[in-house]
């Protein structure tokens, strides 16, 4: 498939936004349960919330560039009963709204307990909003992943690993970003957040490598024989019927050299997983914002390559009809 920059940016940016929000609320939940030393982290939540909102908004803007008729984008919410893309279109703005509310609640200091749980845990507005946001963040990961995983003709995507990877990759980049932000705002949280960022990056690497392993063993279900219904063992296409390009020759081919495709795989394994883990370990040891910011940047770059590869690797059965120009 052709990797469209708009969709690459959409999925990576909102993934990082969702992960960052989850990181913020994880810190808050741990603090609530007394598992983290209480720190004055109000500024951290507000800045993190603003950053997450900006990432989600940037992703949403990028997605519009994928549409031929962006002015009709609202119509895409109509078919939520059957379409994962429709569900994503609904959940993304809803999640964005909740992140904005979460940020506002922290910014306006709405931290007076609304009620108290039997264990004596004071629940304030930010906790309630955060819980809703967490559910929506995971729902959005599932929607984004299922947009691709539900397409049974694209065998490379048609696996539960796809939504799992979207969740883990988004989570890893978000927690990495949170760790870098913490290094700038509340250094006390760096150890906790970078630890989670490393764990999530390792898990994401495991999920992604498992997918690579699976996809390397896929056998295309459609063949030249089944595509044209001729049961001869040796078929070679001589002509596709026209010499110029068309939508079918562009949209479903990555249009890059095989070498770039081969290089992309080791490149993203190093940049999205190995290097950020090492940089985060270094940043953790030195409590240095520079190392963690570098980890963030390198990982995001790696994820852009990963997403490019995700699309480029998928082989659409219609390509069988466009093998040769006479």
């Amino acid at each position, binding site marked *: *498939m052709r990797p469209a920059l708009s969709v690459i940016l959409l999925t990576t940016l909102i993934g990082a936004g969702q992960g960052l929000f989850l990181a913020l609320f994880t810190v808050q939940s741990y603090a609530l349960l007394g598992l983290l030393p209480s720190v004055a982290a109000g500024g951290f939540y507000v800045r993190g919330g603003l950053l997450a909102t900006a990432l989600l908004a940037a992703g949403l803007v990028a997605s519009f560039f*994928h*549409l*031929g*008729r*962006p002015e*009709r*984008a609202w*119509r*895409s919410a*109509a*078919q939520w009963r*059957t*379409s994962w*893309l*429709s569900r994503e*279109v609904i959940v993304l703005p809803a999640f964005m709204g909740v992140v904005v509310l979460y940020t506002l609640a922290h910014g306006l200091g709405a931290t007076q307990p609304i009620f108290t749980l039997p264990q004596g845990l004071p629940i304030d507005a930010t906790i309630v909003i955060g819980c809703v946001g967490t559910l929506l963040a995971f729902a959005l990961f599932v929607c984004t992943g299922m*947009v691709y995983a539900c*397409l*049974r*003709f*694209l065998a490379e995507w048609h696996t539960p690993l796809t939504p799992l990877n979207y969740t883990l990759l988004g989570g890893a980049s978000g927690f990495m970003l949170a760790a870098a932000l913490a290094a700038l705002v509340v250094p006390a949280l760096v150890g906790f957040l970078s630890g989670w960022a490393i764990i999530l990056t390792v898990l994401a690497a495991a999920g992604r490598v498992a997918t690579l392993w699976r996809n390397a063993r896929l056998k295309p*279900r*459609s063949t030249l024989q*089944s*595509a*044209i*219904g*001729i049961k001869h063992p040796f078929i070679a296409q001589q002509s596709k*019927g*026209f010499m*110029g*390009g*068309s*939508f*079918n020759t*562009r*949209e*479903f081919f990555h249009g890059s050299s095989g070498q770039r495709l081969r290089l992309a795989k080791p490149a993203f394994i190093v940049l999205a997983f190995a290097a950020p883990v090492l940089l985060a370990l270094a940043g953790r040891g030195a409590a240095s914002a520079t190392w963690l910011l570098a980890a963030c940047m390198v990982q995001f770059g790696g994820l852009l390559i990963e997403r490019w590869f995700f699309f480029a690797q998928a082989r*659409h*059965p*219609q*390509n069988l*009809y*466009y093998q040769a120009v006479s």
Partner: protein
Amino acid sequence: MTRKQLALVIDLNVCVGCHACVTSCKEWNNYGAAGPLADLAPYDADPTGTFFNRVQTYEVGQYPFTETGASYKREQDGIVLVDYDKCIGCKYCAWACPYGAREFDEHDKVMKKCTLCVDRIYDTRMAEVDRKPACVKACPTSARIFGDIHDPHSDASRAIRENGGYALMPEWGTQPANHYLPRRTTRLRIHEDELVRADNPLRVEGHLPKPADDAATFDDASW
């Protein structure tokens, strides 16, 4: 399953590969309800355009989904159409079609696909014989048969049944309506009464002697 399912049956045994169907399709649909089918850089080095390039529609039996409801399967005849006023051009429906039947129009910025010439086949201003898809009308060898494949008595159904018609990529279970007829061994059957003019009065009345086997014969005077 719709009651009626219009479809094309393409006979690979008689198709000569002349592309008249493609040209005729482009001509009609460029000006018809689906048009324009825009060309980009038509006279330059790298021309491209929308032209329903394989002139095949699928009108799948199991029609999956769209994002906006812009693409829909008609109850009355099973034709799958795109509402160009609703399509947002997200291209996702093209990803969900294994055959590549859908084409994004770079000019109108919406998804287009074969309409089975829905603006021809019901047009009562046309002579009955013209109410067929443009590709079918253009075919010089009658390699394209148009009809209702849910009606067992239609030409299309009969052609599928009697000539081993098959669907493409059956492994996906998409149940496409369009079928292809395979290459077949052509046998020439000549009967005795085709060689001898049974109704020739000259012969019957004994006015014409049987010519020698190596003698020249003329159609009008043949024995």
